[in-house]
């Protein structure tokens, strides 16, 4: 469809939120709590934060929950019954006030879960997902969306993208049919656009590196001493992966009691030492430098190579969450500078 531009003011925006919520949608909106901002389900309109630069956690759990119940089972002495879960019954989730980086991340997730084998559970959730984006008018030193072909006002992944204007109103770009249907249902809340330009208000995020160069360097940089040097500080926790909007490593676990139980898909991280450990004791990625390399390689080399997308939206969450200042932007800039000869 051809994108449309409308204007909505703050009061109307709150009304839109409330009306969507009242319609039975699960609203997923950022709230400031415990000294940080995170998305929560169905907060009151008054609780929603519009002032944060970035939430600590991403919004990937709307489609890839930290624990997903794959199916249930009941076993008795000689028989096993599988009880399937009807994922068509998951409610429509509206991600409200997601920054363009988060919105864009969904398309990367789509690739992961749909290349080759199709993950029906992911898709069931994804089909019910609506993204109301919010352009960034502020950014910090960890943001680098522009370096990965996105930007503070990027429309990718949003059904409606809002941009706050200096006058307190919002530009609403209606980008998809889904967005349009929401806008149409609540047409009275919107007013016509007067040619407002969002570029004026958008945060300035300078491009810091060429991701093409990074990808190219990585292709030949597998054995570079960079990895050892730059990962000595890494303590091997999963914070970066867990806050990342694109990291999708997972584990499959059974939980049962007295023969009844469920099989679960849980978040995991390639940074954990046990992640690739074989039963034989052999570990293909034995030390942290190899695991850190895997993380960056996966995002900036393997995924571009295999699926033609960058596994990073430049949200900077991992840098912010890292307890030991493993700053991904710093490292990517360094990687870009590396002079590595092609083999």
């Amino acid at each position, binding site marked *: 469809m051809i994108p449309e531009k409308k204007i909505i003011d703050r009061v109307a925006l709150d009304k839109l939120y409330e009306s969507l919520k009242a319609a039975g949608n699960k609203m997923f909106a950022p709230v400031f709590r415990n000294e940080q901002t995170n998305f929560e389900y169905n907060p009151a309109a008054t609780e929603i934060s519009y002032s944060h630069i970035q939430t600590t956690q991403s919004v990937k759990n709307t489609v890839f929950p930290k624990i997903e119940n794959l199916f249930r089972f009941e076993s008795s*002495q000689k028989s096993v019954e599988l009880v399937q879960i009807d994922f068509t019954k998951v409610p429509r989730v509206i991600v409200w006030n997601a920054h363009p980086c988060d919105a864009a991340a969904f398309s990367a997730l789509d690739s992961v879960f749909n290349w080759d084998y199709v993950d029906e559970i992911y898709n069931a959730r994804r089909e019910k997902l609506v993204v109301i984006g919010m352009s960034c008018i502020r950014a910090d030193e960890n943001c680098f969306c522009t370096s990965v072909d996105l930007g503070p006002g990027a429309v990718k992944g949003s059904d409606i993208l809002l941009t706050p204007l200096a006058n307190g109103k919002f530009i609403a770009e209606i980008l998809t049919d889904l967005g349009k249907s929401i806008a149409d249902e609540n047409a009275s809340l919107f007013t016509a656009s007067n040619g407002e330009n969002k570029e004026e208000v958008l945060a300035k995020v300078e491009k810091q590196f060429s991701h093409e160069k990074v990808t190219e360097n990585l292709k030949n940089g597998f054995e570079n001493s960079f990895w050892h040097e730059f990962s000595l500080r890494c303590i091997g926790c999963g914070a970066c992966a867990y806050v990342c909007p694109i990291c999708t490593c997972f584990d499959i676990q059974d939980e049962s009691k*007295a023969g009844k139980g469920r099989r679960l898909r849980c978040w995991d991280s390639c940074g954990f030492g046990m992640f690739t450990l074989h039963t034989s004791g052999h570990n293909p990625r*034995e030390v942290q430098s190899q695991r850190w390399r895997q993380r960056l390689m996966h995002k900036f080399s393997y995924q571009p190579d295999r699926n033609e997308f960058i596994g990073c939206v430049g949200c900077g969450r991992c840098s912010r969450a890292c307890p030991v200042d493993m700053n991904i932007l710093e490292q990517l800039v360094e990687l870009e500078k590396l002079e590595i000869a092609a083999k």
Partner: protein
Amino acid sequence: MSRIGVFVCHCGENISATVDVAKVADDASRLPGVVHSVDYKYMCSDPGQTLVKDAIKEHNLTGVVVAACSPRMHEPTFRKACATAGLNPYLSEMANVREHCSWVHDKSEQTTQKAFDVVRAMISKVSNNGALEPIKVPVTKRALVVGGGVAGIQAALDIANCGHQVVLVERSPSIGGHMAQLSETFPTLDCSQCILTPRMVEVAQHPNITLYTYSEIESVDGFIGNFKVKIRKKARNLDEELCTGCGLCTTKCPQKKIPSEFEQGLGFRPAIYTPFPQAVPNKPIIDHDNCTYYKSGKCKICEIVCPTKAIRFEQEDTILDIEIGAIVLATGFDIKRSDFFPEYGKGKYKDVIDGLQFERLASASGPTQGMIRRPSDGQIPKKIVFIACAGSRDPAKGIEYCSKICCMYTAKHAMLYKHKVHDGEAHVFYMDIRAGGKMYEEFVRRAIVEDHVNYTRGRVSTIYELDGKLIVKGADTLLGAQAVEIEADMVVLATAGIANEGSEELAQKMHVSYDQHKFFAEAHPKLKPVETNTGGIFLAGACQTTRDIPDSVSMASGAAVKVAALFSSDLLTREPIVARVNRIPGPSHSTCVGCFLCQPVCPYQAIEREEIKDRAGNVIKSLARINEGLCQGCGTCVALCRSKSIDLLGYTDNQMHSEVLSVLEEAFV
């Protein structure tokens, strides 16, 4: 699934009266992994065991659960049955549905449910059991006997005569114990020393016995077959090699008025002394507390007179390290002293004495050469009151148990007195006469009938002194509690026998348990009376409870046989319930990270360091290793280990975890 057989016992009606055993067996048959489930009247009977054996073969069972009595009762029985049928014995478990269920609950659905829950938990546990092989450890064929009384002597001689080395340790300067102090023994009235001293000499001369008197146990480490014992040999201040036992030093010692321990304070000894003339070894010791030299730095008369120059004032205690395979504890007993009884003067009346003191008075080698004389003035008492049960069977003020020997020795004392003082009057106050034993009842009758000892059934309420006489006030309960008052010249209290001083401390050193009265506890009151709960440590004589000479001697021989049986093979088979540090393939080798915090928690020092080396011999990893010979299987290290790298065979994490989960599987009330 595993193939588990469940066998539910009725135990006659002991279980089936309150538990619906058929239902338990039926419900169990539907549990995952169970392929066979039956109930039977007596599982422990021959046909019952055959049921188990047959089922193992027929159903190719991988595990057996017997729901019956406590595993402390029949676990070995069923393990053996499994082994006979070709199933590793450690693949069987018992569900305790008798002691822990049918006997403690009334008949109800809940009781049956509980029984079923316990069975289900054990099924779950057994499906995680692994086949275990008993551990073989070498046996040091040298026994330690602690205590040189008649029990210790007997045990030492019996073991030595089986051809094994024995180390006999006695705390006092001479062996002999209480028996050496006795005048005559009941019921034969033969001379105690006459029958004992030859045996004492035999001990001293036996080629297989090493005797350490005036020595104490410092510490005991290790385990059955492999104890490491430290003995403190206290300084006698004497070169024992040189001393000939001539006794010149003891006669020349200027300190002569020291109350003699052997004489129970009724006689005296010098500062350098042998406790009694027949002492073994017949070598004196110096009593530092009373020796002039040690007190003032002068004297040394003994050193001067000693013909062989054997005195060594500067000698110090020595510590001996000895490897021992088995230990017999024969540390004996003590008695309550007369000062224990406030109603009898709390020790302030010199002529109220205890039984052991009377023995010394009656002994021909005693301070009065066998004449019965009052300690206060040396007069021959014309009237003696003997009070039995002084402190025994008195939960309020004394001890609740019967000391067992007092009735007999009181009769003996009264009899000896009558034999020596023909015109004397002997009165005995008693609660009732306990004279169970060969010729014992006859002996007491003889005292009453032939020697005219006056027996009065009743308690003595008070004794006080008046004009040189002891007024004994009591009651005759056979005459309707009629008050009785006797003016006596002397009173002998048959005081209660109690655990020896220091027995608690010794028990802790030995890791043996003891009862509330601090007597050492036997492993089983009926079936293992001479064993303790600690393997390789046995009991003989009155350290377990007061007993008379024949009992002590037979118990000593019993303990000796246990030791000999233990020494009959070169290798000892131990239960494989030991902790183990896991091993996994390299490069990790084990999940143990070698923090060694488990080392200090092990009571047996069983945790060692193992170093994994690469081909060049460089240490690539240090990790804990359990010495299976030392480990006793308490599992404290297992619960402490943070990385779960240690597990306890027989009680593995998997077993305990599944048992906990399974016992809670259903709402059970």
